[in-house]
């Protein structure tokens, strides 16, 4: 009751029950207790019922040998690996397709969003048709379309389409020569990392000098020279310790080299095109949110059109674009779980599918899978929020 003056109408000793602050507190505590009790009850009841029915529980199954094969694995995996390992393989496959999807969807989305605003009638309409078509067809159907479109139209391995006998395309995937690193390659690797760091420092120095003296330094050419030149010199000097492993046809299929399986290709394509259409609309709305006066003011100051776009329009548009862009990234990551439909071995297919069925540990497996998607989404959100804060209007 520190604020006596504003409470003149309230009696000197207010009843506790009518005190809004006190009541709010009590109800919040009551609500929290109810929720906690409910959760506790659910967990206890589930465990009790499972025990009653002789269903084994716990995470011990993660150490057991899985015994089944997985089509694509970014880490070493074979039939004698554990179920815990199948989880990692599935998780990495999910991350791979999500990362590829986010990259291409952003690319497609930004290009299409800008084209949608083009003053060229044909380009403008093409972008509109793309956006309206792909935004309005269910994603699962698009995945099937790309997958079976590729599957039915590419030749069999023996009649592969080939480029110079080193790159092969058929209905089993795209086969590329794989680089094989020999002993002395370490030096080249270090040279690459070193030159990247050098370029970053160079860019900072150039910027500082520009701000201090107004003198321009052509960072692009210098950076390219460092990035390409230094590693090449080291590579040649250490005796070219790398060769290519070419895919060759053996029996029914190709062996060796790198394989991009059609499932990955179709899924990435479908996810990028679908999400790209949404991102395009986001980008368009962002650009249109920057008032035309800004552009006019920029040209009045004598800025070139490309500079106007880069220095005036886009920085302001980004503030509008980023929050909805975050949701699109989240959607894409979660939509990647549709992979199971076409046999891409993602987390849901491998772990919440085969592993669940072999072990029967439904509650544990589904709980782990759900937490993974939750963590992935939260990580993306945190990153995008950080980026958003960085791009936000700085009030001075």
């Amino acid at each position: 009751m520190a604020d006596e003056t504003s409470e003149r109408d309230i009696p000197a000793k207010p009843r506790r029950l009518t005190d809004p602050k006190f009541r709010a507190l009590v109800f919040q505590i009551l609500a929290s207790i109810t929720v906690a009790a409910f959760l506790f009850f659910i967990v206890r009841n589930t465990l009790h019922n499972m025990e009653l029915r002789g269903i084994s529980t716990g995470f011990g199954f993660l150490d057991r040998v899985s015994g089944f094969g997985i089509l694509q694995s970014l880490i070493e995996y074979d039939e004698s690996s554990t179920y815990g390992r199948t989880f990692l393989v599935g998780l990495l496959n999910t991350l791979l397709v999500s990362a590829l999807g986010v990259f291409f969807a952003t690319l497609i989305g930004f290009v299409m969003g800008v084209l949608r605003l083009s003053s060229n009638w044909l380009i403008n309409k093409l972008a509109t048709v793309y956006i309206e078509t792909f935004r309005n067809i269910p994603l699962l159907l698009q995945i099937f379309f790309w997958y079976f479109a590729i599957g039915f139209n590419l030749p069999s391995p023996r009649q592969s389409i080939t480029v110079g006998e080193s790159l092969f395309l058929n209905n089993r995937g795209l086969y590329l020569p794989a680089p094989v690193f020999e002993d002395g390659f370490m030096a080249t690797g270090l040279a690459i990392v070193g030159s990247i760091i050098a370029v970053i420092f160079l860019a900072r120095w150039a910027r500082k000098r520009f701000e201090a003296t107004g003198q321009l330094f052509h960072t692009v050419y210098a950076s390219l020279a460092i990035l390409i030149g230094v590693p090449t010199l080291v590579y040649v000097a250490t005796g070219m310790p790398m060769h290519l492993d070419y895919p060759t046809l053996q029996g029914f299929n190709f062996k060796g080299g790198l394989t991009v399986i059609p499932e990955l290709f179709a899924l990435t394509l479908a996810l990028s095109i679908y999400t790209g259409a949404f991102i395009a609309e986001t980008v368009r709305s962002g650009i249109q949110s920057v008032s035309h006066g800004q552009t006019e003011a920029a040209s009045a100051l004598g800025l070139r059109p490309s500079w106007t776009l880069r220095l005036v329009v886009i920085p302001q548009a980004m503030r509008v674009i980023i929050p909805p862009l975050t949701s699109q990234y989240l959607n894409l990551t979660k939509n990647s779980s549709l992979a199971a439909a076409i046999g891409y071995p993602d987390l849901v297919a491998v772990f919440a599918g085969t592993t669940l069925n072999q072990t029967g540990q439904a509650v544990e497996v589904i709980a782990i899978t759900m937490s993974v998607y939750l963590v992935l989404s939260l990580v993306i959100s945190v990153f995008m929020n950080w980026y958003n804060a960085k791009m936000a209007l700085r009030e001075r």
Partner: protein
Amino acid sequence: MKILRISVLTAVATAGMALVGSAHAGTTFDAVKKKGFVQCGVSTGLPGFSATDDKGAWKGIDVDACRAVAAALFGDANKVKYTPLNAKERFTALQSGEVDMLPRNTTWTYTRDTSLGLNFAGVNYYDGQGFMVTKKLGVKSAKELSGAQVCIQAGTTTELNLADYFRANKMEYKAITYDSSDETVKAFESGRCDMLTSDQSQLYALRIKLADPSSAIVLPEIISKEPLGPVVRQGDDEWFNLVRWSLFAQLNAEEAGITMKNVDEMMKSADPNVRRILGVEGVKGEFLGVDDKWAYNIIKQVGNYGEMFERNVGQGSALKISRGQNALWNKGGIQYAPPIR
């Protein structure tokens, strides 16, 4: 308002508690008897085992397993309701009490029998995993398939068998795992994989789905044992007994020559074995908690094992699978039921 909201919450929580509490009060047997029908978990559509016909009625030997139980318990084989389940959902549906029994071309394995809180009541079809390849490939045996890419349906024992077979024979393979059998067939047809693997009975059923069934052949090799049978929840022996002996009654009936057609005449038979099976003398239905005419009802309405087999997957069906291992033990097969006495 807030008080109201909280009391609603508490009420919901209590109701939830009561609901879950009643799930294991009273055994399955009593619960099924009380509600008046058997809730039967079947596949989403596998010709010969459980699939709907053109009129929307469920047909197949797995469907008949449920019908036999309903005939024994209620004297009416039609008192069954069906829940189509995919391979991933099936055990959870049974564990949670969504279905009373699960005859869904499910392989009896050690892990499933011991760690899932389930019991297998018998084997209604002895199956084994096989391979289907395109004729173009010119392969005669599975041993020539090293380096092959294999299309397979997820959530089945076939994934493990495939891995075992290729490892044991030191051959390489790549498995492409699909969620449903339709996608698996489509991928096989489009040439994504060299072969398709599944239980052999299913291969014949899937081959019918191909645009040109004669373009594919089923290889002779069988790489695994797949005893398929009805599954029930652990903890209700009365129900387990009923499901198990419904199947045994059908097998015993075939052995004794009792068929759907002659079962009424057989009631007057002098053969003590036949009289016992039909409940005319000796054994009583009360041991199972059902009517004395329980086996009569099964045979009259569903038929004996042989009739059921021929009608659904044998010569009377599109699949034309021969009896093979599923013939009776005295006719060269391994189907054998303990006697009813």
